[in-house]
């Protein structure tokens, strides 16, 4: 079983290729890998419950650990109660810690 940190920096409204990232994360999880997705920058936008893309994020969270960068959320005025189920706010140091875990592959999209 492998370990992955997928850092997603784009949102599906801006980039259709984000769908590929979500699919890859789910595919890796289906293959019994441990997957964490860290949403940063505009990638936190679809993590709002009210977003029309929140279903995609929720599906992702059903298979992988999904974290949202606390600064990106705050910068966009998104509060914790607005987050879709399964997404947790996390600080940027989490990226450092996970990246430096032995054997973890880090992919930034």
């Amino acid at each position, binding site marked *: 079983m492998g370990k992955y940190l997928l850092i997603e920096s784009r949102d599906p409204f801006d980039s259709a290729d984000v769908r590929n990232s979500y699919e*890859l994360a789910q*595919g*890796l999880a289906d*293959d019994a890998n441990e997957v964490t997705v860290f949403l940063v920058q505009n990638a936190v936008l679809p993590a709002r419950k009210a977003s029309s893309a929140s279903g995609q994020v929720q599906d992702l969270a059903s298979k992988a650990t999904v974290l949202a960068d606390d600064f990106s959320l705050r910068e966009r005025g998104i509060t914790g109660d607005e987050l879709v189920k399964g997404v947790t706010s996390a600080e940027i140091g989490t990226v450092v810690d996970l990246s430096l875990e032995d054997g973890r*592959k880090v*992919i930034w999209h």
Partner: protein
Amino acid sequence: MPKVLSIVESAYRATLEEQDDTILWLNHMLKNNGLDVTILLRANAVNYLVKGQDATGLKFGTAELKHPPVIDKDVADLIEKGVPVYYVKEDADERGVPESKFIEGAKGISRKELPGLLEGFEHVWHW
């Protein structure tokens, strides 16, 4: 020596400014310096495999771009150098990119096969 998968998605970013696709160039240099690299072309970059791409003719005033990038040749050079080049078949299909016009030597994989492909690499980098 770690095995590296370099994923190229962005395409045709700097035709005027650069002599090559900068990521294909960098990966060629990484290979020259001993790194074990493999290329995966996806999204718009699957178009890099099409034979006959032509960026000639850029001229502004008296300044002329005499040597624009020749992307299909750059990819062919990488393959000839022993760099495996993959592309995502569905990305090509969605874009109507005709595989019949592809250069020789690139290997198509499906989206479903991607997680398995990643297993073989220590580093997986989007550029």
